[in-house]
């Protein structure tokens, strides 16, 4: 089943509330996915630095080992490492060498990405989503079908800088796509079919496609059921498969664009009573880019 949500703000005065709004949306979707939950938030960028979100145990030791140039923000089982751009390769190398137990869940100028097993309300509270600010964010509540209930199987998936994807559905040709993508240098870490979809979009965007063009191409190359919500550093997009197998509803006002698997997820948004509420058409790419 799974529930997915997304919120893309047009009005910057809502940015301090992004996390609170997204948490509310995600928690309503518990009925659709009680196994695990995850979210990505696009917050402030710090010039000259990249953020690496890492997940695992004994994160306290990471900050000490990496020295003063790396600023660490701990949030439960995750930590966000703010790293000078010039040191990113060094830090990644250190993590791979010294702490192979840790997983880098997301990386980029602005993205922070958290996921855990458990009820969505527990997950949002453990990571303090309500306190997070940002311009846009996506989230997922998982009812596992194609792979096990593990944190690795939870969404969102990030396979490129400041990119992330949440998926409701299941893909049929993810094995063959994986075989095509891996030699192209697209990192796919888990056995999850949705991560392959994220990797496919990363591959297309590396080749120069915009997010909308990458999604357009995916209609030819991905086989299966899907509703995707995708974030990039400055973009937000939605796509449903050609027979619209999985549910989707959107709301747009002057202040935001919001996505939910069900309308219930959107009822807490400001001004929803007067929003343009619509169902995205099958096989049509809906994309927004920040000014």
């Amino acid at each position, binding site marked *: 089943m799974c529930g997915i949500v997304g919120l893309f703000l047009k009005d910057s005065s809502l940015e301090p509330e992004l996390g609170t709004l997204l948490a509310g949306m995600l928690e309503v979707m518990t009925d659709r996915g009680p196994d695990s939950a995850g979210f990505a938030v696009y917050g402030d960028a710090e010039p000259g630095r990249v953020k690496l979100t890492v997940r695992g145990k004994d994160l306290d030791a990471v900050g000490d080992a990496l020295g003063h140039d790396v600023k660490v923000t701990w949030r439960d089982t995750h930590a966000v490492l703010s790293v000078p751009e010039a040191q990113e390769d060094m830090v990644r190398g250190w993590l791979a060498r010294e702490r192979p137990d840790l997983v880098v869940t997301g990386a980029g100028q602005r993205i922070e990405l958290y996921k855990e097993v458990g009820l969505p309300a527990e997950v949002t509270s453990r990571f303090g989503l309500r306190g997070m600010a940002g311009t846009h964010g996506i989230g997922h509540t998982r009812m596992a079908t194609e792979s096990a209930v593990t944190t690795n199987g939870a969404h969102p998936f990030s396979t490129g800088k400041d990119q992330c994807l949440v998926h409701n559905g299941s893909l049929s040709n993810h094995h063959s796509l994986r075989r095509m993508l891996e030699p192209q240098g697209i990192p796919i870490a888990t056995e999850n079919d949705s991560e392959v979809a994220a990797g496919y979009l990363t591959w297309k965007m590396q080749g120069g496609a915009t997010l909308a063009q990458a999604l357009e191409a995916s209609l030819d190359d991905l086989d299966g059921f899907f509703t995707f919500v995708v974030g990039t550093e400055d973009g937000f997009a939605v796509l449903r498969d050609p027979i619209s197998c999985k*549910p989707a*509803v959107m709301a747009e006002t002057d202040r935001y664009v919001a996505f939910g698997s069900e*309308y*219930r997820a*959107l009822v807490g948004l400001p001004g929803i009573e007067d929003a343009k509420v619509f169902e995205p058409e099958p096989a049509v790419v809906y994309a927004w880019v920040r000014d």
Partner: protein
Amino acid sequence: MPTVDLAQSTRRELNGALHALQKQDEGSSWRVENPAGQHALACGLDAPVTVEIAGHAGYYCAGMNQQATVIVEGNTGVGVAENMMSGFVHVKGDASQSAGATAHGGLLVIEGNASARCGISMKGVDIVVKGSIGPMSAFMAQAGRLVVLGDAGDALGDSIYEARIYVRGAVKSLGADCVEKDMREEHRAELRELLDAAGIGADVGVDEFRRYGSARQLYNFHVDNAAAY
């Protein structure tokens, strides 16, 4: 008018109260505040009463309806009036997928658009959509009438049996075994009746519509038709 505020009461309390209504409650009118897109609102009613839902409803709103009038002052989620047997369901906004699915009777009127699979497997219901309908609508439709003032998406009426479809706008494509048919006088008359029932005035004329139905080639399996199934 009894009012149930779903910010205060549960959906079970609402549906329980509505299920308790009987023939002698005829004409009673209920109002449901703060529906907030909840699922299964006003499902399984079986009394000649009216229920107004003041906002958007979730999945299966007014499902299995008998006798009752259910008015939704907003959009509905998947499967509004699914398996309706009789009565009247009126959606003031848009309807999501599978509106009127498998419904046997009654009238479903949608003021806005209906998305994919509107009237899938309909078995006698009348559906009037004032906007457009999505792909795969009237899939395996067995009986009843589907009237669309706007356009129809891909594969309209795929594998249709005896339902009749009237579309005023463009049909993107017809599904297997669905064909355009002549509008005879009896069809003009029934279409006018349906338009009247949906509150559509004489400014919409029956001659603006085309009729679609079954070519009746797929009723029995024939190997030459294997590719069409």
